[in-house]
């Protein structure tokens, strides 16, 4: 049920925002939206100011769903205060570090136990740079329209995460050989007790992967409240749905987790997208859980329709994938007939945003710039949307027009 404490907190935060000049905020949000998102959004969206955050596009405030404008993606690391915010359920407690605990148990755990934040910090620490991208990023560009949070480009970010390998935590729990999945719950929950709590599960091989960590630091600082303080799961290469915020329960399982958020939610039609690693225990005849991020890229130096001077214009952006690494970013200025390779920038690791840049010769009039990323195993973006009913995995090659 609704907790008055949480209401007070959110009322305070929203109250602060309400005192800003609302018209200016609405106008600035309209210019920040991704071209092609439903036009109903421009009618109400403002640049919302959550505590500890720079202004973000406020698609929804209860539960909080805020995306980053394009301009926040001009560096391969997304600063914490510019990182997007996504929640399914609106009862979000402010978790206290001093009393915080993660319970590790389940029928697959021989020795259940509890971990405090201090316990976590005493374990061997690892760092990994990884993209956290919402499964439904770019859903708002889906044609035909699909219901949901109508994200543009900005439901993603890349950070350096520091924490403890999940497999090290699981080792203390004595994982039985019959274990097939490990499920996760966070401190946030539903407003009504009949609404299914947000619980997510991964196959045991993914839980044991070296890259899967419980993170308590993000870009060298504690996690922002709205990104999962005090600790969250980080599943590099997989979409954000598995990255449980405010992690309080690790459930080691010998049976598939059967909750709403594993099925029917977060599903893709079987066979529509290439998958290296399947999540067999959750598959059925027609659907499979969304897992790996598909290869993708974004032009971040210019918005569609940007005015430039004729001559050399450096266009730059980011590319990323599910952890194979980016091999090539190619750019076309003739609508996709011919392509040339962009220069790749700093390599922060195979799960990170890879910056790229390309010098375009802008003619007087209009120049279109199209971008396509190809990863190390040869997967490429698509020229036409692979439609699915939830609007996942939109990696259609982006095309913008520059005006000189």
């Amino acid at each position, binding site marked *: 049920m609704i907790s008055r404490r949480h209401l007070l907190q959110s009322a305070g935060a929203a109250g602060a925002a309400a*005192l800003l000049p609302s018209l200016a905020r609405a106008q600035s949000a309209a210019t920040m939206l991704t071209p092609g998102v439903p036009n109903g959004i421009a009618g*109400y969206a403002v640049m919302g100011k959550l505590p500890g955050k720079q202004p973000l596009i406020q698609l929804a405030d209860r539960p909080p769903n805020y995306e980053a404008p394009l301009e926040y993606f001009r560096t391969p690391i997304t600063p914490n205060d510019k990182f997007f915010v996504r929640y399914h359920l609106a009862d979000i407690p402010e978790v206290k570090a001093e009393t915080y605990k993660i319970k590790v148990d389940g029928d697959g755990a021989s020795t259940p136990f509890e971990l405090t934040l201090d316990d976590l910090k005493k374990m061997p620490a690892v760092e990994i740079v990884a993209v956290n991208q919402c499964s439904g990023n770019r859903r708002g560009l889906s044609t035909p329209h699909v219901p949901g949070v109508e994200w543009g480009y900005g439901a993603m970010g890349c950070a350096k995460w520091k924490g403890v390998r999940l497999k090290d935590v699981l080792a203390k729990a004595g994982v039985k050989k019959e274990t097939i999945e490990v499920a996760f719950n966070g401190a946030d929950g539903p407003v009504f007790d009949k*609404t299914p709590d947000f619980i997510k599960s991964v196959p045991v091989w993914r839980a044991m992967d070296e890259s899967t960590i419980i993170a308590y630091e993000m870009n060298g600082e504690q996690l922002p409240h709205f990104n999962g303080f005090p600790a969250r799961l980080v599943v590099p290469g997989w979409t954000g749905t598995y990255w449980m915020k405010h992690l309080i329960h690790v459930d080691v399982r010998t049976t598939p987790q059967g909750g709403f958020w594993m099925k029917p939610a977060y599903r893709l039609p079987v066979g529509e997208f290439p998958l290296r690693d399947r999540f067999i225990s959750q598959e059925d005849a027609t659907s499979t859980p969304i897992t790996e991020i598909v290869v993708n890229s974004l032009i971040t130096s210019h918005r569609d329709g940007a005015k430039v001077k004729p001559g050399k214009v450096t266009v730059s952006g980011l590319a990323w994938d599910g952890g194979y690494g980016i091999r090539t970013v190619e750019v076309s200025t003739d609508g996709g007939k011919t392509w040339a390779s962009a220069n790749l920038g700093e390599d922060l690791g195979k799960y990170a945003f890879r910056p790229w840049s390309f010098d375009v010769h802008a003619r007087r009039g209009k120049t279109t710039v199209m971008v396509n990323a190809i990863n190390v195993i040869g997967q490429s973006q698509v020229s036409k949307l692979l439609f699915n009913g939830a609007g996942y995995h939109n990696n259609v090659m982006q095309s913008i027009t520059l005006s000189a």
Partner: protein
Amino acid sequence: MRTMMLAVASLALLAGTAFADEQAIKLKPGPGLDKVEGNCGACHTLAYIPMNSVYLSRAAWTAEVTKMIKAFGAPIDDADAKTIIEYLSKNYGS
């Protein structure tokens, strides 16, 4: 400034309108708006309605309302559900 913010929040709570300071979403006036505000607005912002319009057909709005009741356990009775679907289809439907 801070005192004023607190005063605003307290007033809202005293008046029993806990969400008064939230995102200002003005839905179109019409029959059923009160049911939409009372039922849908209990769990989430009403922004989801303009966010997904005008693209949803009557069938799609019906599916959304049904999902809220069946999958999310929203305590909405059949009569209210019908009124809500009618309002959404008429005002925010394709």
